[in-house]
């Protein structure tokens, strides 16, 4: 069924590629009613309703020609089941959902994109869109070890060249350390830059603190445990910066201006 731009449909795996340790890109055949923008996500259910109560939110890597690409890294039993699928297997997909990065904000000024782990997905699409409009974004990617780098995604084209960081095991093309050092160096060089980030929460917190210290505008693409992806279950909320109200990551996000929410732990209420 397809209404109001959201599509829910069975989809079949049409291609599978291992891109890093326990990380695959799966392409599904599905006709979405509307195009996908960077940051938007899909709710994906393995289809086994007795074993999986909830669908999984997965950021969309690409959608073109009736094929939806998702990157899946094994994190729990649900993602393990999805990652193990092969061509011909089916899932239930609800997409595209959520907000996206506003391309115009990233054009006409330096744009630094800081990705960690599966956070590469929305920033990969953002970088591609920016390059297609003649812009030259500065994408930076960090992983724990070289085996965790999804190298097929990290070439000079279509989204790079990427500056790559690993916490250990540096090689010629890799720098050793945290991705945040790359951000600090880039901001030294481009103090007027806008920053986009997606990745593990501690990494994004570090990025937010650096951007706040430098006065750099920051857009975050959040990952949160979700039940429905439609604003119904209220599982995925974040605190609004101004009021006592909370905002849903699934409907009002996942992309936020970091100043619109209480993102850092030191800003959050312990209220109930």
């Amino acid at each position: 069924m397809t209404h109001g731009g959201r599509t829910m449909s069975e989809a079949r795996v049409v291609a599978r590629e291992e891109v890093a340790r326990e990380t695959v890109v799966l392409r599904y055949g599905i006709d979405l009613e509307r195009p996908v923008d960077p940051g938007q996500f899909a709710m994906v259910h393995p289809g086994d309703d007795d074993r999986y109560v909830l669908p999984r939110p997965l950021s969309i890597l690409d959608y073109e020609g009736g094929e939806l690409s998702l990157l899946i890294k094994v994190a729990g039993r649900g993602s393990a089941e999805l990652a193990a699928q092969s061509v011909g297997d089916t899932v239930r997909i609800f997409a595209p959902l959520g907000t996206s990065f506003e391309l115009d904000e990233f054009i006409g000024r330096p744009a630094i994109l800081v990705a960690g782990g599966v956070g590469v997905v929305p920033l990969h699409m953002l970088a591609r869109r920016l390059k297609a409009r003649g812009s030259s974004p500065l994408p930076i990617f960090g992983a724990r070890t070289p085996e965790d780098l999804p190298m097929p995604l990290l070439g000079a084209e279509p989204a790079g060249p990427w500056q790559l960081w690993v916490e250990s095991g540096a090689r010629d093309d890799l720098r050793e350390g945290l991705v945040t050092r790359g951000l600090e160096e880039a901001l030294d060089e481009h103090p007027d830059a806008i920053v986009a980030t997606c990745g593990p929460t501690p990494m994004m917190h570090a990025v937010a603190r650096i951007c706040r210290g430098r006065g750099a505008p920051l857009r975050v693409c959040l990952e949160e445990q979700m039940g429905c992806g439609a604003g119904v279950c209220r599982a995925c909320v974040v605190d609004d910066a101004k009021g006592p109200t909370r905002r849903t990551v699934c409907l009002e996000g996942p992309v936020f201006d970091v100043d619109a929410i209480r993102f850092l732990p030191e800003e959050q209420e312990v209220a109930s």
Partner: protein
Amino acid sequence: MSVDLRFQCGPVEFANPVFTASGTWGYGIEYLDFVDASCLGGIVTKTITVEPRPGNPQPRVRELRHGMLNSIGLENVGLEAFVATKLPVLREHSIATVVSLAARDESEFSTMIAELSRHDGWKAVELNLSCPNVARGGLDFGREPEQVERIVALARRAMPDDRALWVKLTPNVTSIGALAAAAERGGAHAISAINTVVGMEIDLARREPVFPRATAGYSGPAILPIALAKVWEVAHAVSIPIVGIGGIGSMDDVLSFFVAGAAAVQVGTSLFARPALAGDFVRDLERRFEAEGLAKVADLRSSRLPGHPATTTG
């Protein structure tokens, strides 16, 4: 044989016996572009309180094998905003609406019903008695029969004559039958059973419960047998209709509730993965009844329950 799926509940008639459960269908308007909710027997809204509530901090939801834990904390927009911004949309789309209410003290339910009565667009109220009574040290309202009877009687007095009063009970008690009987004595038109089962998940790395409040509400396929047993118990204790809730994921689950004594059902947690599921049940129910030679829901009721057609029509 013609099939009659109407659900008569006190003064209110619903088109069929399939509803969405509170907390799993938002305010009933989030899927308007996506699912035709006007075909349902009705929707039960997210629980509404007098004042807006921000609910609990993260984490709020954890998926487990065969079920999920939630600790949302009754986050809602408050009665005034509900009446002003949600109810008109529900009315406009002809969605049969049951408004779930929670209160801080016994009299607040009546105050909220009185306020709702000034507006159109709803058919029934469902009292959520699994909320803490602030005046009584935060213990749930729904645990003592005397208190349940008193609250329901107060609420019933505030109800307009043409709307129905449902009372939703928690399974986390020794005898849900005694509470249901108390609600019936207080004037309830129907019993909704069950609310979530109290549960816990442990974070072994931290050696602490996952949720800051330690316990949370368990729902999903895992609680189906618990819900069926509780509905069975309630069916022995009351003669008003029972709305069965808990773990429904298939048409067989729906029919199982009817056998156990329910006159209607609410679909809950399964809607997160399959938003169209309740509508699918409505569509398939008539076909299934025809195929099995059933004329009405009561025909499925177990012969071992009081009120079985064979034992009451003779």
